């Protein structure tokens, strides 16, 4: 057995990087047991905690980059260890030394793009509002009911742009007075922070905060759970507090207030089975489980079914913690398991509410053929129902280009950025 000595200086560094929560660990193994990685390979987050406690993290290895920050282990850790904080602290040290193994080499690209253009997709800042061309969407002005903070993927990614459009259509249908910031909007910074790029996160956050304050924003509507999370729980570190609302909550509010009329009754034929996937950052991290389900249940012709791992036990798609940009080998993709669970539940539609989840699931369905459930955003499902389309038909505003699957291929994102409106 190799002999190593604890390294006090590294322990201090990890602590200073915000990772002192390892101290509580009593090595019970619960984190390993609940970690989605251990459904596809061997990975020990517990070992990383022990290494952190002794100042022995292996920063040159893939292991420290694996955690998708899905939040399952901290939510179940009996000792109250925050494994995410520890992981991110170790990554900050690795990032400071600029050590990125091949699987996460794209993080540097994403970081560069974020620094230059405020998005990780190597797309032009100026094209951020291009998705809305011809839709008559106004720039945000003080006094509007809500700022629609669109987010990078919904702005540039060809598949996700459909969701932005669907969202805008629903808002219009409900008579919501809203606007967007266009090129003044920057990436929220949530995911790049998880890759250890703390300074970059702060820069992005400050830019957004400045833009929000300059524009007189009070209430921010977001589509991505990642934006939601960082605005709600991380931006307060800058001593600001905005009223942040997720689209699923907001739509539920609109329905409740009878501003958005959903179609009633049934659509005749047998109901379409829909299952809902809880994105980690909406469910576990922020406790929003019910609004999307309530909306889906109101729709005619839909039967909501649950997958094996639902709500707080939701199985991560694999895209959090920066891994949306990482190389993950085919056999290690959680999304394959998750889509499999949807198929097992008999779902024809796998609805969710997160750009990473949708991207990963669509990638998985490519290889499934006929059996594949349709991957849809909740807004798309609602809009389709409102338009009276049957659930078996293609989603609203189909885009002929294939869904964007590997966002780390930055030029694809750039192409999308130049792409036309649906």
């Amino acid at each position, binding site marked *: *057995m*190799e*002999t*190593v*000595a*604890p390294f*006090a200086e590294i322990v201090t560094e990890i602590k200073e990087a915000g990772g002192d929560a390892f*101290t*509580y*660990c*009593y*090595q*019970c*193994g*619960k984190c*390993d*047991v*609940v*970690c989605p990685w*251990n459904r596809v*390979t*061997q*990975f*020990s987050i*517990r*070992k990383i905690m*022990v*290494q952190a*406690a*002794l100042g*022995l993290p292996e920063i040159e290895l893939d292991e420290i980059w694996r955690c998708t920050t899905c939040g399952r282990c901290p939510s*179940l*850790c*009996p*000792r*109250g260890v925050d494994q995410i904080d520890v992981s991110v602290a170790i990554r900050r040290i690795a990032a400071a030394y600029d050590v990125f193994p091949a699987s996460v080499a794209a993080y540097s690209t994403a970081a560069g793009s974020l620094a230059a253009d405020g998005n990780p997709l190597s797309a032009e800042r100026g094209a951020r509002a291009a998705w809305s061309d011809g839709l008559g969407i106004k720039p945000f002005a003080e006094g509007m009911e809500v700022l629609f903070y669109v987010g990078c993927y919904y702005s540039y990614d060809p598949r996700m742009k459909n969701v932005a459009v669907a969202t805008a259509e629903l808002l219009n249908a409900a008579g919501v007075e809203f606007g967007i910031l266009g090129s003044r909007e920057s990436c929220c910074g949530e995911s790049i922070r998880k890759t250890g790029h703390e300074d970059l996160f702060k820069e992005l956050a400050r830019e957004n905060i400045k833009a929000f304050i300059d524009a007189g924003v009070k209430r921010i509507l977001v589509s991505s759970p990642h934006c939601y999370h960082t605005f709600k729980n991380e931006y307060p570190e800058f001593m600001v507090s905005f009223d942040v609302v997720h689209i699923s909550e907001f739509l539920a509010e609109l329905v409740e207030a009878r501003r958005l009329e959903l179609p009633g009754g049934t659509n005749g034929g047998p109901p379409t089975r829909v299952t809902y996937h809880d994105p980690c950052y909406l469910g576990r991290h922020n406790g929003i489980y019910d609004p999307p389900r309530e909306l889906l249940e109101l729709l005619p012709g839909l039967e909501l079914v649950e997958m*094996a791992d639902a709500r707080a036990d939701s199985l991560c798609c694999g895209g959090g913690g920066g891994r949306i940009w990482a190389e993950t080998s085919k056999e290690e993709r959680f999304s394959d398991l998750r889509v499999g669970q949807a198929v097992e539940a008999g779902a024809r539609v796998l609805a969710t509410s997160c750009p990473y989840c949708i991207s990963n699931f669509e990638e998985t369905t490519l290889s499934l053929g006929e059996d594949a459930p349709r991957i849809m955003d909740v807004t798309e499902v609602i809009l389709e129902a409102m338009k009276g389309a049957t659930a078996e038909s293609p989603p609203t505003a189909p885009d002929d280009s294939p869904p964007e699957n590997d966002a780390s291929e930055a030029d694809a994102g750039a192409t999308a950025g130049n792409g036309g409106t649906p």
Partner: protein
Amino acid sequence: MSNGRSTLGDVMVVGGGISGIQAALDLASSGYKVYLVEKNPTIGGKMAQLDKTFPTNDCSMCIESPKFIECDRHPNIEILTYTEVDTVEGEAGDFQVTLTRKPRYVNEDLCTGCTVCTEYCPLNIPDPFNQELSENKATHIYFSQAVPLVPYIDERCLYLEDGRCSICEGVCQNKAIDLRQRPEKQVIKVGAIILSPGYGVFDPQLRGDYGYGTIKNVVTSLDFERLLCSTGPHEGEILRPSDKTHPHKIAWIHCVGSRQVLEGGHSYCSSVCCSYIQKQVILAKDHHADTEAFVFHNDIRSYGKDFERFYRRAESLPGVTFVRSYVEIGREVPETGNVTVRFATDSEGVKEEEFDLVVLGVGLGPPADVHGLARQFDIELNEHGFCKTNPMNPIETSRPGVFVSGAFQGPMDIPESVVTASGANALAGALLKSRRGLLDTERVYPEERDVSEEEVRVGVFTCHCGANIGRVVDIPEVTEYAEGLDKVVHAEEGLFICSTDAAASIADTIREKELNRVVVAACTPRTHEPLFRDTLREGGINQYFFDMANIREHCSWVHSKQKEEATAKAKDIIRMSVARTVGLEPLQEFELPVNKAALVVGGGVAGMTSALGLANQGFQVHLVEKDETLGGMARRIRTTLEGVDVQAHLRELIRQVYAHPLIHVLHAATITEASGYVGNFVTTVEAEGQVRTIHHGATILATGAAEYRPTEYLYGEDERVLTQLELEERLAMEDETVARARSLVMIQCVGCREEGRDYCARVCCSQAIKNALKLKTKNPEMDVYVLYRDMRTYGFKEDYYREAAEKGVRFLHWEPEGRPEVEPGRDETGQPVLQVTVPNAILGQSLAIDADLVVLSAAVAPSQGNPELARLFKVPVNPDGFFQEAHVKLRPVDFGADGVFLCGSAHYPKHITEAVSQAYGAAGRAVTLLSHDTVTASGSVCEVEPAACIACGACIDVCTYDAIRWGGTKAAKKAEVIPALCKGDGLCCSNCPTSAIVLRHYTDEEVFNQIDAALSEAWSS
């Protein structure tokens, strides 16, 4: 139950579990009138639901139920079941308690317990006693041994719901059913209150832990107790809920609801689960030898007496695997109902195994509605919702006159519940000493019938013992056989002969059938003989006309696979027993005066506390200490883990001892001789140059223990290696080497949990954490490592374990296969250090730590004087050298030798708080003896026929108890038995060359009858 509704008592005991029962019995036997209040329809508590008890695997109900009957028959105890406390007014010495007696819809005074109502009741409800795993009628007796043995009607009854049915009223011959009963108020005045409400069981359904409540084959450990039990839902067959088949592969999950800071969980350790899980594993293997068991844990906490051996026994069974990992449920397999469990390994990643059944080791919580309870009694709770207690007297609550015993103090095992109950007797006794005996009622028995002229008429009562015997031995066949035996005029069978009604019915039968000999064919005389002898007295005949035929331990349990042969053997045993009873003679027990003084050996915290406990109740105490000063091991301890100043407490204790007029202290004392017997001991003590003879009625051994002097890890060779006690002393002295240390490594389990000292020293983990926290407070920069095998911070101590982790103390696990090594070396700057290496399985690497100091958590070793004291007082020591109590569960501070008690670390290593509890417990037990003027001695003693004695002295030589002396005349020396000392072992009889010495109740005739009967019929198999 006594007649009338007297409203004046001395003490009210609230909660009728084992702790409340023990408190009631001790108080009642010490001369106080006790009201025992229980909210359930019967006394018994959680212990009644358990199948067996660790670490001896005694049948739980079998050892508890005799105490039910003792309570029921005790003239000083009034049991109020199905009763709740409303308000408590007044103050210590003068409380007024208002009770609500819930309607049980059955008039206890009229009901005969015939259960016809149960037979006719049309409604099945889930049975609460069986954890709702089976059904019972809405009208039913809670369990077969219930006291009182009358049914109650559940609130779900059809009549109570909407008046639909009242069939029970119609069928009851005695008109005992009263469906219109209303709650009744009752006011009782008492001087003191003992709270023994027990604990609540963590409900995993609240958070959906491990699929409990949704996955059928996930059960709690309490559910599993019922599944194991012969009175359980499947008569002791372990059948899983989904399809009622035998599970072959079972997983146990530790710490369910415990040791976690998650919402809805408990941060503390529940203290008992590790051992009860091991017990369940052993019992499951007993039921089915091919059972495969996986135990998922994170530290095995076998910190109690004999627990370590018990753990290893479970671990070494074939097919049993202990895995150090918490787990999650993978999935329920739809086709089979099996459940998969995912667990972590050190080097092979996460694995998933499929099980037929999963058992959740659920933790202990405060009793139900604890805040309501706290309000009623106006007592404070601690942050966990248990009773807030003073660490230096955990039996006191925040309200004077209200005491607490049992698991309401915090999670604890049965013996501690019993000890604190006896301790409550000592404390309540001190408060109420002026009224002791004023409300005392003597037990009145019917006059004893003279049977000398009667024909021998034997009655035989055979017992199914639930299914313990009945499942193997064909009881109806055996009963029929018994009825046909010579001299037998009556034979009958019963499900539980030891239940209150069955015992009462034996007494009736004795009168009706004019029986003059009784044989009970059931379990062991060790636990049940006193009960049945008492029954004979109730029936009006001499109690020595009784014999017990053990067809359980000697038959059904050892021949469980050979039913026919076992039935034949049961017949043989009964035939022999009947033959023996024919020759039995009536014997008289005799009363011996009781000397009201006590001798306490050992002047440490335990000895001093028990001396004060006795003296405060008005008894003289001789306190004998071998050192020149009082204090014992506590002199070396500065604070407890909880932060109590031990030295301040010790000073106050010593002051009280010296100031107490009834306590006489002897320093630098050696006991040279001890003789006498219960109530009348004579002990010779040499102290400070003088020899004294002390006469005393009771003896308490509190001789403490000592820190083991290590030979491991360079101790004694390198001055940088210390023990925990040495570190504590140095910390107190502000020692420079400790203050300057940059890195300090503690090594646990030094000199214990290994060959030769095969037990856990219990205190070291907490001691290490205490000192680590102190080091971190003094110098937060110091690197402190604790190298452990299992961190055994049981109970609320777990919070300090987490606190130490929070403060940066590093805890590193090792296994005996990879022990730490310590050697002198130099650090990277060339400074001399001690280099400690320890393998780490999670890292797959060995860690090398440079330490300025190495601190050994050295075992607690038994006091060296124990063997000599054991010889003098004729009490046993266990294989580890600690004193051995009479019964690990239910007589934890008594010795088998009457009148001798024990407490403190002489019993087993323990924390100061625990030693204090036990000291009061020993005092409480001693008072049950000292409060009486006389004590009864057995009639079954030896007797010398002087004419036949040739004065050879053989009997005197062999007697272990010095019970035979020279008597007769100068001219004709004869052996003479001192009856009070004679234990009736008969050793003398077998050594007497002329058969001049006879053991009454085991005369040659009686024994030969038995042997002849054994041979009289060919072994029927």
